[in-house]
C-alpha cells in the first residue's frame, strides 16, 4: 500500500513537471507569442502560407490582454523559457533589460547582410525603436534588436459630417491651436462632444503633452529636461500645461475625458457623437468595425507655436524579437525576414488596416491609412530619444494634467510638483 502511494506520488510529480515544458522547445517548428487579438487570424494565415512554402510550422500563440502578455513574457524570461519569437510591451528600459539578461538576439548582422537589404526595407523611424545607438544611456551595445511588424502614428482624427454640420470646411481641419480652440464654443452650442480620447488611462495624455512640448520648446529642450538640465517649472513647460487648461476652458474637450477609457472614446467617435478624437493609427481598423460608413480624416494636433514643428508619437507599432537562447534562432530570423517582406506586409496592412513597416508595401493601403502614414515624417517616440524620463515624473505629469483639466490645480502648481519629484528622483539616482 505504502509502495503504491509513493509510486503514485512520484508519477504525479513527474506528470506535473512534464506538463510545464519550455516555451521554445515544446512544439516542433517556430513558436511566436503575441498579444495582438486583431491580427491573430492574419498571423495564423501567414503561418500556414509559410509552412506551405518552407515546410516549417509556425505556431502563433495569442496571449491577451496586453497586460497579461506583458507579465507572461517577464515570467518566461525569468524561467528562460521564452518562445523563439516574441514581442516586448513596455518602455525602452524594459527592452534594454531583456537584452542585458541575454534574452534577445542582436539582428544587426542579419539586417546588414546583402548590402543592408533587410534593414533598408523598413521605414527608418520604425526600425529606430528597435535600435540602440552608440553611447546610449542604457549601456547596450549598439545594434538592432527587433524587426518592426507595423508602423503606428498617434494623431487626431475629425468627423467630416459633424464638421459640415458645424459650418466648418470638412477638408480643412484646424491647423493652429487658436483655430482649434475656437471650435470649442460651436461644439458646445451644437450639443456635441469635442475631443475624445482615453485619458482615463493616462498614457495618451502623456503622448499629447509631449507633442506640444516638442512644438513649443523643440526636441533639444525636451531632452534637456529629461536629462535634468531644464526644470519643469520653465515657462515653456508652463505653456505646455496651459494648452490643456485652454482646451478645457474652450469647451473643446468632451465631458468626462479624464475618466474616459479609449474604448469608450472610440465608440463615441465611431458613433458620430464626437467631432475629434486623439488616437493611434490602429483606430482605422476599430472604426471600420464599429461604423464602416464613418467619414473622417486624420490631422496633426494643431500647433501652439510656429517656432518648432509639431511632433507626434509614432514609429514601430509592434515589433518581434528573436530569443537569443532559442535552438531555432536561425529559422526564426528567416521567418521574420519573410514576415516583414513586401508581400506579407501588404497582406497584413490590407487584412488588419495597420500601417506596414515595409516601405514598399505602402502603395497598397487604404486612403485613410495613407493619411496616417504621412504623419510618420513628424513622428518621434520616447524609445528613440536615447534617454528616459523617470516613471514617477511621467506619472506626476499625467496626473497633474488630469488635475488641470478638472480645475483642481493650475499649470504652475503642477509644474512645481513635477519638478519636486524630478529632483527627488535625480538625487536618488546620484545616491
Amino acid at each position, binding site marked *: 500500500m*505504502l509502495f503504491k502511494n509513493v509510486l503514485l506520488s512520484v508519477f*504525479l510529480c513527474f506528470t506535473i513537471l512534464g506538463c510545464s515544458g519550455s516555451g521554445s522547445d515544446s512544439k516542433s517548428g517556430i513558436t511566436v507569442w503575441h498579444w495582438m487579438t486583431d491580427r491573430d487570424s492574419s498571423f495564423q494565415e501567414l503561418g500556414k502560407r509559410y509552412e506551405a512554402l518552407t515546410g516549417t510550422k509556425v505556431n502563433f500563440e495569442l496571449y491577451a490582454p496586453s497586460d497579461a502578455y506583458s507579465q507572461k513574457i517577464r515570467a518566461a524570461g525569468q524561467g528562460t523559457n521564452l518562445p523563439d519569437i516574441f514581442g516586448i510591451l513596455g518602455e525602452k528600459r524594459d527592452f534594454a533589460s531583456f537584452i542585458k539578461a541575454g534574452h534577445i538576439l542582436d539582428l544587426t548582422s542579419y539586417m546588414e547582410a546583402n548590402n543592408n537589404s533587410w534593414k533598408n526595407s523598413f521605414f527608418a523611424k520604425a526600425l529606430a525603436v528597435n535600435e540602440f545607438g552608440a553611447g546610449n544611456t542604457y549601456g547596450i551595445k549598439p545594434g538592432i534588436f527587433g524587426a518592426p511588424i507595423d508602423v503606428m502614428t498617434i494623431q487626431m482624427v475629425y468627423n467630416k459630417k459633424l464638421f459640415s454640420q458645424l459650418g466648418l470646411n470638412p477638408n480643412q481641419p484646424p491647423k493652429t491651436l487658436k483655430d482649434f480652440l475656437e471650435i470649442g464654443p460651436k461644439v458646445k452650442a451644437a450639443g456635441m462632444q469635442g475631443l475624445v480620447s482615453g485619458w482615463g488611462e493616462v498614457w495618451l495624455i502623456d503622448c499629447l503633452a509631449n507633442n506640444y512640448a516638442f512644438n513649443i520648446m523643440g526636441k533639444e529642450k525636451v531632452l534637456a529636461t529629461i536629462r535634468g538640465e531644464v526644470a519643469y517649472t520653465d515657462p515653456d513647460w508652463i505653456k505646455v500645461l496651459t494648452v490643456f487648461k485652454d482646451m478645457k476652458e474652450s469647451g473643446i474637450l468632451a465631458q*468626462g475625458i*479624464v*475618466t474616459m477609457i479609449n474604448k469608450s472614446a472610440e465608440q463615441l467617435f465611431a458613433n458620430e457623437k464626437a467631432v475629434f478624437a486623439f488616437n493611434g493609427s490602429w483606430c482605422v481598423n476599430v472604426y471600420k468595425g464599429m461604423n464602416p460608413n464613418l467619414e473622417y480624416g486624420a490631422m496633426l494636433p494643431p500647433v501652439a507655436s510656429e517656432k518648432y514643428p509639431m511632433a507626434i508619437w509614432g514609429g514601430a507599432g509592434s515589433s518581434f524579437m528573436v530569443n537569443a537562447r532559442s535552438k531555432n534562432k536561425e529559422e526564426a530570423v528567416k521567418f521574420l525576414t519573410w514576415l516583414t517582406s513586401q508581400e506579407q506586409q501588404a497582406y497584413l496592412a490590407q487584412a488588419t488596416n495597420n500601417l506596414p513597416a515595409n516601405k514598399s508595401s505602402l502603395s497598397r493601403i487604404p486612403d485613410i491609412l495613407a493619411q496616417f502614414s504621412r504623419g510618420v515624417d513628424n513622428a518621434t517616440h520616447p524609445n528613440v530619444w536615447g534617454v528616459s524620463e523617470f516613471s*514617477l515624473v511621467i506619472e506626476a505629469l499625467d496626473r497633474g494634467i488630469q488635475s488641470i483639466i478638472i480645475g483642481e490645480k493650475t499649470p504652475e502648481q503642477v509644474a512645481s510638483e513635477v519638478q519636486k519629484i524630478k529632483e527627488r528622483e535625480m538625487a536618488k539616482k546620484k545616491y
Partner: protein
Amino acid sequence: MKLKNTLENYIFILPAVSIFAVFYVIPFVWVFQLGLYEWDGISFTRVFVGLQNFKEIFLQDKNWWQSIWNAGYITLIALTFQNILAFMLAWACDREIKMKNFYRVIFFIPPVLSEVVVGMAWRFIINDIDGANVINRTLVQMGLGQFAHNWLSDPNTALTTVAVIHCWKGFGWGFLIFLAGLQTIPRELYEAARVDGASAWQSFRKITIPLMIPVMVLVAILTVLGTMQVFVLIVSLVGGEFAGHTSVPVLRILASMRGSSRFGYACAQGITFGMILIIISFIQYRFSKKGQ
C-alpha cells in the same frame, strides 16, 4: 512499527504539504525577500537596498497613502451602508414573507457577476455621454436637475460613486452569510421572549443582535479584506486612478510593477498593505471579543 506508521502518515500528507509550500509558502517568503531589493522584474541580478523601499513608502510616497485613504473610505462605506443593507435584507428574508426564495436569488446575482461587467454596466447607466444617463434623467424628472452631473468625472463624487457601486455588487455576500447566521438562531428563543411579553424590537435587540455578533465580525473582516483590495471595478468605471481620486493600493502596486518596472518596490508595497490588512482584522477581532 510505530516508525513505519509515522512515516506512512508523513508520506500521505507530503503531496499536499509540497503543493502548499511551492505555491504559498515559498512565494510568500520570496515576496518578503524581494521587498529588500531594487529589481526590474526582468534582469537576473538584483540590487540589495535593505529597508530603503519601506522607507520610501512610509516617508515619501504620498500617492501610496492617498490610495490607502481612498480604499479606507470605500471600506467604511461598505462596512456601514453595504453591511447594514445586507443585514436588513437578510433579516427580512428570514421572516415569513412572500417570494423570499426569489429575493434570495435576486440579491445574490450582483456578487456572481464579473467586476468588469458590473463596471461597464454601471458606467453605461450613469455616464451622461455614451450611456443611458439614468441617474441624471431621474434627478431631472424629480425636479432635482441641479444635482445632475457627470458622477464619475467629478473629483467630489467619483470615489463615492465607486463605493456605492462596490456596495451594490458586494452586499449579496453579506446577505447570504447573515441569512445563514439568522437561520441558526433557535426559534424557541423568540417564542419564549414573546410569551414573556417582549416586543419585536426587544427580541431583535436582546436575541438577534447578540447571537449574530460572531457572524457580524466575520462579515466585517471579509468586507475589509475584500474592499481594501478593490481595483478591477475602478479600472472599468474610471479607467484608472483619476488624478489620485480613485487610486487604491492594488492600483499603486500595479503601477509600480507595470508602469515603473519596480518589482522590489511593488513587493514592499504588497507587504505593507498585507500588514495593514492583518492589523485591521486583528483590531476588529479583538474589538468583537471585548464586545462579546
